[in-house]
């Protein structure tokens, strides 16, 4: 794992509090599961119909009837329950999931998220992402701050098709952490070793700095 990615994940796991029900998106967010400290007791939800995802199974205990939303074989933890897809999204859309951590392609300064489609490339579909961003109580997006061409993914406004409008509560990149409030996008943390100058250069979006809340 790259250093930047590791930094993002280490910061993201701190968003998870004891007693929460959490949905971790497919891909990078799924990696957070293994990093949750033992003393933080959470129920991970999988939108294909499971609350209480456990570890990956030992090779002898693989069950094709037991997968997560990323279609990986998993196990259940004590207290788990199964349900159908309508019930699963009732749970999500009804505001019963405390936190969803999702990957992003672009986030705008107004909290718009684009994470499902790149025009011109083959469309794969939005899966449950559009439901999660509208339904979960808190939406945390984790992504690289810039793309491989060095362009900012933290935009004034998204250029890619949206997953949701003004839905992001918190953005975590390898450079910084932002909150989205009524006043706008607010820098709340700089990642270790990142200077404000570097951040400003790498960020297309306008953001507020409340020095009181910032551990620089």
């Amino acid at each position, binding site marked *: 794992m790259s250093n930047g990615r590791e930094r993002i994940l280490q910061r993201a796991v701190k968003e998870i509090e004891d007693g929460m029900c959490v949905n971790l998106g497919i891909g990078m967010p799924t990696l957070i599961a293994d990093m949750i400290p033992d003393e933080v007791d959470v129920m991970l939800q999988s939108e294909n119909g499971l609350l209480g995802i456990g*570890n990956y199974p030992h090779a002898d205990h*693989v069950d094709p009837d037991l997968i997560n939303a990323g*279609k990986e*074989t998993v196990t259940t933890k004590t207290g788990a329950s199964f349900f159908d*897809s309508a019930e699963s*999204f009732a749970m999500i859309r009804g505001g019963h999931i405390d936190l969803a951590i999702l990957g992003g392609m672009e986030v705008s300064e107004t909290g718009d998220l684009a994470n499902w489609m790149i025009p011109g490339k083959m469309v794969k579909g*939005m899966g*449950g992402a559009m439901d999660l961003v509208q339904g979960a109580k808190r939406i945390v997006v984790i992504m690289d701050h810039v793309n491989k061409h060095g362009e900012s993914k933290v935009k004034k406004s998204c250029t890619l098709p949206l997953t949701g409008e003004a839905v992001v509560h918190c953005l975590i990149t390898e450079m910084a952490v932002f909150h989205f409030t009524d006043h706008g996008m607010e820098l709340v943390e700089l990642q270790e070793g990142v200077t404000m100058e570097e951040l400003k250069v790498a960020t297309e979006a306008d953001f507020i700095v409340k020095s009181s809340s910032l551990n620089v």
Partner: protein
Amino acid sequence: MSKVISSLAEAVLKVRDGASIVVGGFGLCGIPEKLIMQLKEQGTTDLTIYSNNCGVDEWGLGLLLENKQIKKMVASYVGENKVFEQQFLSGELEVELCPQGTLAERLRAGGAGIPAFYTATGVGTEVAQGKEHKEFNGKKYIMEEGIVADFAFVKAWKADPFGNLVFRKTARNFNPIVATAGKITIVEVEELVGAGELDPDEIHTAGVYVQHVYAGQNYEKRIERLTTSKEA
């Protein structure tokens, strides 16, 4: 009053060219593999399929794609299939992408006699284009319509002769709602149990939704992403 059939051929024969079918399963988990294979064998074309995914190359609904039986696909995620990509890009295959929760709710609504409902999912995105918008308590929602199809293809774990169904683990997924959304619902199961052997409190789907039950054998249950851990 037993709903048990000893072969799928006769039941699937009712599916004619141009029919619409709702199909259970998530990825390759809990898919009605025997029904799909029977439909492939039968060769029925111009189908409209509602299913969360469209299988993979050479398995699940991918078999029907490969065989050019599907005209239109309504799904939330279709990223695992090269044949799909080819047919979509060539314009052979019509695709409607639907957020997963909206797809699930549309199936449930269709089965429950609800023609339409409002949801926040998709507001401000391409999904909302052309859809009716409405505000409730200051928040924007879009209207989505229920789905009822000619047929429902369902995979359950156990059934009794009344068509009462029990599902297993995450193979439940879309199956119970799909079962409600077909005018004719055909179910394949791993185990057929005798009348009275299912506890009425543990039944996931009541037999009222089910027209035919078939006991399949030698389920392949392919795994898309085998992921294991060395810790137990």
